[in-house]
Each structure stands twice: as C-alpha cells, then as structure tokens.
C-alpha cells in the first residue's frame, strides 16, 4: 500500500486540512472497529510508540493502534490557526516538528509569500517534507491544500509546489485550490490568484479547483432545508457532508461546514486507494485517465448525495438520482455548468453498495445528454470502493475535465485586468525581492493561453467531426 502526505499552507489550507484529519479519523474509526493499525490507516497516518522518547522515529508497523500521527506538514506565516490546532482536540495527531510558522503573515501579498518566505523557509520546508517522506515506505502522492486569494497559501503554497517537484519529481502532486469569491474582501486576490495559477498550470499533476462561493451556496442550501422543515425526514443532520459529528472536534466553528465539504472531497478521492473494492482506482490513475494534455489538468468535482441522504434501503430510482445529480450545476464544487460545456474526460468514483450494473446503466443513460470531445466519446473512468462514507450506504464523486472551468478563469482575468490597468497596489509587489513586472505579464499570458486551449476545444462542441482516415497498409 502506498502513502500520501498532506501539505497544508496558509490559513485556509490549514483549516481545511484540519477538517480532513478529523473526518479521516472518524472514517477509519468507523471502519476499523478492532483498533488495529492496518494498511488503510497507514496511507495517511503513522503509528508511533510514544513511550520511546526518540522523536517519533520508532514506528510500529502492525498490531494495535498506539498513537496516530498525521502524515502532514503544516505551514503558515502567522501563528493563529496553527496555534488553535495545537490547543484543540487534534493536537495529538501532530507534533511540533511538523509545523512551520512565522509571526507576521504575508499581508495578502503573493510576492511576500512566494519570494520572501519562500527563500527564507525553503530549507526548513524541504527538511520537514523529507522527514515525512522518510516515514513512508512507498510515497505516492502529495496533497497540497491552499487558497488562491491570500498571500501565504497562494504565494508560499505555490512555492512549496515547485519545491516538491524539484525534490520529489516521481511523486504525484494533487493540489486542492480554493478560489476566492467575486466579493472577496482581499483587494489583491485577483493578482494573487493569477500569479498562483501559472505555478499550478506548470507544476501540478492535477488541480481540484474549489470555489468559495459554491461552498457557501451548498452550506446555505443544506441549512435552509434542515431548518425549513422541507425534507427533514430525508436529512439526517449528523451525516451530511457539512457535518462534523462523530469527529473529535466538539464545537463547530464558522467555516467548518464549508471546509468539511472539501475534506469529504479528499476522503472520497483517496477512498479507493485506501480501502478495497471490486474495481480499484489508485491515485495515479486519476491523471492518467483525466489529463489528456499536460497543462489541461483542472478537474471539476461534484459530490453526491449532497442535499438529501438515503436510508438504508435505496430504491433504484434514488440511486440513479445520485448519478444524475453529479452532473447538475448545484452539485459542483465550482460555479460551473459541465452539462453545457465540453467534457474531455470524466471519472466516476463510487463508494458503498453499488454494483457494476448500476454504473453501466447510469453511464448509458447519461451519456447521450453529455457532450464529449470527438476523440473521447467514451471518456469514462470508473472506480468502485466497497467502503461507503460514514452515515451513507453509497456515495459518488465525479471528477470532470471539462471546458466549464473557463468562465471562472476568464472572470479572474477580468478582475485582474481592472486592477492591473490602474497599476493598483503593484508597488507592494514590485518592492519584494525576486518580483518583477514580467512575473505579472507572464502569469497573465500563461492564463490566457490556458483559456485559449480550453476555448479551442470548446468550439468543437456539437460539430460532427469525421473519423480520421485510418492507417492504410499494403495488402
């Protein structure tokens, strides 16, 4: 079995990360009733004998769970969030050697995060990651969690991404990036996002973009349904995707609901690599199947069931609804409409009590309604994991490489343009050592060409492309 390391950078990255660790523990506790340290647990946790005072070097490979330590590196350039974690119920899963903090923050400035803190903390970060990597016997993947709008997550986060590529070229880099809302209170967020986008396009194996606004909408809708009484019978509060119940953190904090959604995304995407199933889908299969061209690696994700929760006995219709929902606008973690854009590829990762015939029936049913690129008309990848999420009988995560990411990127570019034309706040960036005006223009042209690549593919939608004439051979 392989292992993964989570690198969480900045305030948002660390908050999402913590929800992930909490829910991961809940999930494993639910499956692993005997308290044995098994292969599934080992993918994200180490088992440490704390009685030996050797800095956690003595790992226990089999047997009972002693003390679990997260395979994580926590980076933030201010202390608030990380300190909160260290005082909270999750403190046990981290030790001080996994943390890298500063006191002054990046001031919402990508350049400060990327260049100033990047060069100052480079060695320390490499050292921490290397130590975490040494604890793995087969490190497969880094999960980087950060936000795009601020300074630390966006700037230092993408610096870390580059470092990971340099130091561990063989290990996959899957990045979860939280994109700012249009009404973001950080004025410079378009600058930060676009500077970060270039790094993501060049250095990540794949990016799971998540829009803040979509998370807000989903949380509001679930709360609304729960309170209005509509569908109360269908909602068991303790097992919605926004719920933390059953985790070790008792009190819910303001953003927990939103962060839990992202945490669930990460749990589902790794489920098939952790648990057994009749059709395994390992992490390295994600990029292989969903990334036809190296730069076009932005995957739109949707989680179902999201709003209603199934009972134990699911009629077929309800199961089919789960598949339909995965393609609706309301279930995307981005504000995007995949159904009316072009699919380059699509993966369905199901968990729980779903059979191959259910998958086949639904693919056949949905296929005619979804536009796929001419050369990938059958661009479906499926994975089946037998362990469902806590509180569910079944669940589905759909990952789509779809041209619907384009509007979000164009929107960002426009907001960037508004600031950049006036040269607003530019001097704050340019006074940082390592930062030049060219960084802005290059980042902008990188994004523009990405948008252009998606546009060109999108333009082929609906046009009937003739099959390429086949190779002729002498007979």
């Amino acid at each position, binding site marked *: 079995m392989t292992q993964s390391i989570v690198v969480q950078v900045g305030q948002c990255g660390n908050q999402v990360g913590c929800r992930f660790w909490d829910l991961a523990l809940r999930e494993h506790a639910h499956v692993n009733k005997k308290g044995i340290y098994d292969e599934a647990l080992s993918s994200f946790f180490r088992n440490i004998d704390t009685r030996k005072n050797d800095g956690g070097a003595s790992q226990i490979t089999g047997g009972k769970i002693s003390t679990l330590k997260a395979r994580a590196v926590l980076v933030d350039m201010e202390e608030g969030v990380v300190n909160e974690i260290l005082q909270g119920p999750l403190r046990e899963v981290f030790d001080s050697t996994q943390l890298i903090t500063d006191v002054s923050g990046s001031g919402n400035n990508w350049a400060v995060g990327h260049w100033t803190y990047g060069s100052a903390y480079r060695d320390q970060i490499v050292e921490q990651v290397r130590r975490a990597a040494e604890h793995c016997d*087969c490190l497969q993947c880094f999960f980087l969690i950060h936000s795009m709008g601020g300074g630390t997550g966006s700037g230092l986060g993408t610096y870390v991404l580059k470092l990971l590529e340099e130091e561990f070229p063989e290990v996959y880099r899957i990045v979860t990036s939280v994109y700012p809302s249009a009404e973001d209170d950080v004025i410079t967020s378009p600058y930060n996002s676009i500077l970060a986008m270039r790094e993501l396009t060049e250095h990540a194996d794949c990016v799971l973009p998540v829009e803040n606004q979509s998370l807000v909408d989903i949380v509001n809708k679930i709360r609304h349904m729960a309170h209005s009484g509509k569908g109360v019978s269908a909602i068991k509060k303790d097992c919605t995707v926004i719920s933390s119940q059953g985790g070790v953190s008792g009190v819910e904090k303001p953003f927990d609901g939103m962060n839990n959604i992202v945490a669930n995304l990460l749990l589902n995407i790794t489920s098939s690599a952790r648990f057994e199933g009749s*059709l395994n889908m390992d992490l390295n299969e994600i990029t292989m199947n*969903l990334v036809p061209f190296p730069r076009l690696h932005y995957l739109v994700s949707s989680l179902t069931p999201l709003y209603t929760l199934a009972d134990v006995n699911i009629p077929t219709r309800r199961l089919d609804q789960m598949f339909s929902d995965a393609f609706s606008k309301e279930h995307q973690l981005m504000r995007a409409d995949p159904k009316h854009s072009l699919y380059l590829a699509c993966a369905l990762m199901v968990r729980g009590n779903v059979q191959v*015939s259910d998958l086949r029936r639904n693919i056949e049913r949905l296929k005619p309604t979804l536009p796929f690129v001419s*050369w990938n008309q*059958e661009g479906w990848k499926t994975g089946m994991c037998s362990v469902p999420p806590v509180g569910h009988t079944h669940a589905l995560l759909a990952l789509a490489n779809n041209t619907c990411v384009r509007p979000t990127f164009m929107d960002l570019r426009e907001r960037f343009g508004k600031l950049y034309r006036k040269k607003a706040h530019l001097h704050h960036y340019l006074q940082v050592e390592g930062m030049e005006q060219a960084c802005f223009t290059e980042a902008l042209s990188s994004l523009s060409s990405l948008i252009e690549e998606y546009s060109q593919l999108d333009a082929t939608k609906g046009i009937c492309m003739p099959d390429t004439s086949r*190779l002729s051979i002498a007979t």
Partner: protein
Amino acid sequence: MSVVTVQLGQCGNQVGQEFFNVLCNDSSNAKDKHYKDCSHERFFREGPSQDLRARAVLIDMEPKVISQTIAKAVKSDKWRYGEKSHFCQKQGSGNNWANGFSVHGPKHEEVVQDLVRKEVEQCDRLTGILTMMSLAGGTGSGMGTYITQCLRDTYPHTSILNHVTWPYNTGEVIVQNYNSILTLSHLYQFSDAILVHENDAVHKICAQLMNIKHISFNDVNKVIAHHLGSTLQPVYSTSSSCYSRNPIGEFMSSLVNHPEYKLLSVRNIPQMSSTSLAYSVFHWPSLLKHLRQMLIANARMEEGIDWAVRARSVSISDKGRTTREPGFNKSLANLLILRGKDVSGAEIGGFKDPALYVPWLPVESAFSSWSSSVPFSGYEKSATLVSNSQSLLAPLNNMVGKAWNMFASRAYIHQYMKFAISEEDFLDSFTVLEQVISSYSQL
C-alpha cells in the same frame, strides 16, 4: 501433464481465482476418478497436508487484490494458492501500459521468472502456460505483455495461451483503447493464441441467461471461469482410451493453423441460473443446433440469435454479382467440446459443413471435437465451441478506430512518453493490428 497459470493485475487475479474455483468444484464433484485425477494433476499440485494447491503464480503491482484473492481461495476450503507463489509491489501501474511494460516488467522480470520456474519444476511434465490478464489496465496489459515475452524466450517449446479480458465498450478506463492495442499488437508477435472474453458479451449473459439483477464483477468473472473450465477440463481421447494428456498443445494445433490468425472466442451452451437448471432437460440435437447458429450468426448466447443468417460466404444477387452473406461469421477453425450424458450419440455433422470455413483448408484440419461423458459443473449436457473466426473482427476494428481517433489528436500520448513509449511505437502497433483486421476480413 500440467498447466501453469500466471495471473496478472486486478482482472487477471480475480478471473484466475474464479477459474480455479470452477475447476476444483467441478472435479471434486465428478464421479469419474480418472477425470478427477487428471484434472487435479493438470491444474493443482499437492500441498504439505495433501490439500490442493493451484499451479498458479499471482502477480500484481499493488497488494490489495492479491491478498483478497488469496484469502478467497483459503475460504473456499477446497484449494489454495501456494504459500510463496505470489508477488506484489506497493504501487500499481496507474492504467498506464507503458509503466507496466517499460518499468515494472523489466524491473521484476527475474522474480516473476523465478516464481514461474518454481511452479514449472513441480510439474512432472509441462504442457503449457496460461496467462490471464485484462487489456485495459496497466499491470495486466503492460506487464503481462512483457512477461509473456520473457516466458516465450525461456520456454520456447511450450505453448503459451493468453487469456485476455476485453474491456467494456465504455466506462472502465479512458485510455483502454491505447492499452489494448499496445497489448494485442505485441502479444500477436509471440503468443500462440489469444483467447478473448468481452466484458460486454459476458455482462449480457449474466443479465439475460443467468437472470442476475445487480451484476457484479464476481458474476462476470464466474461466467468467464465457467467457459474456461469447460474448455480446459479433461476430455476423453478414444484413440488412446484415456484422458487426453496435452490439452494446451492439442488446443493450439486444432485452432491456430496459420500465424496470421490467433484471436479465439468461446461460446457455451446451455447457461442458466442454478434455480432454472434444476428444472431443465437438454437434448443434444437442440443444443448443437443452437450452438451452430450462434457461430454462424456470431451470437454469444442462445437468446436472440438471428436465425435468418445462413452459412454462405457468397451469394449471387439477381444482377449476377457476388456479395457476402450479411452477418455471416466465417471460421478458420473450430473446436467443439461436448461434456455429459450420451455424448457419443451427439450428431456433430453440422459443424463439418465446408460452407462454414475458408476454401483453402480441408474441413478435417479446420474442425476438431473433444468429448467427455463426465457432466461439467452440474450441467447434465453442455457444449463449448472455441472458434478462430471473424467474431472479433468488429470489436477489434472498433477499438483500433477509437484509438486512432484519439491518437490523431495526440491526446494522452505524453503519459506514455514518460515511460519510453513513443509515437512510433504506437504507429507500429496500429500497423500490426490493421494487418490483422485486413487478414480476418478477407477470410
């Protein structure tokens, strides 16, 4: 005479486990002691406590499936795998044929060869090697191809039969057409025969004949295992009045009489759920009549056969021009295997009709039949037909067409180039398979 099976990748291991289950259940229930002994000697060896150990090697690049497979075998309580006859790594091939072929294959060649050699050394005589894998994934297809190539070098005189599982048309692996064409084109060069099971066809059998509502991969694999078992279990040879000794060798010589044609498909009759089986009576003439039409009309099961298709290669239209009979599946060779009650009385003349075959081969070398009076797997009478025919032409053509379309846009090629498979390698594979398509369509 024994057969060593090499199970590769998730699919290969899961199908393999069902295969040995079918073999073990069938032979343990058989009343004929010679049949039982012969089957056991062929596929199993004796373990330390006189239990049955499959003559098999399990290979995968990740551990989950292997441990599941081994555990399932132990749970059967009738047979198990050898203690040390498996090999797995921690990280799978990620659906990348190139990763399996160029990286994992060469890296683990020695260990795998060693495991196979140890199994081979435990056979009094080796009659053949059976490899099992899927075309779609990365380990089975890529590493399976590499390992077949190695086995060919090490065992130049042993027959190698590749069993491959052909992916569903849609929805397993997106790069499945690439992986499949790379596998098939390479296997074509050094395998003796490639026995194919299409998931789509088997899925339909599960739905329509076995009446399974929620079909799982287990159900699909069980049907494949049933087909393979009914093909490879012992048959009685009247000439030497004993159970035939060289199944894989005889299998090859019956079916592969020209190196251009190596793709084999299997049809089996009857197949039904065990509840209906208890209430059914079978007659040879009807079974064989259906089976013959299944062959002619290229149907995989006895339900929904097109009875209008006739065995004529050409028909003269009213304008005097010759046209091909639409829908007719022409054969190069067929092997009919009958098992059960009154086999000696079964009339098989219908399969010796020259109209079924190409004109350039005498019917005697195009058709062979085996039989055994021991009923197979609870079926009082059953017939299996293995064909080297045009049956796989359409799926192959379809697969190559889709892969070629994708290749024209160069999508996903960078993933293969990471592991030293170039555009030229792809072009070579396309060339090989276009040749195969052309040969089969000209039958």
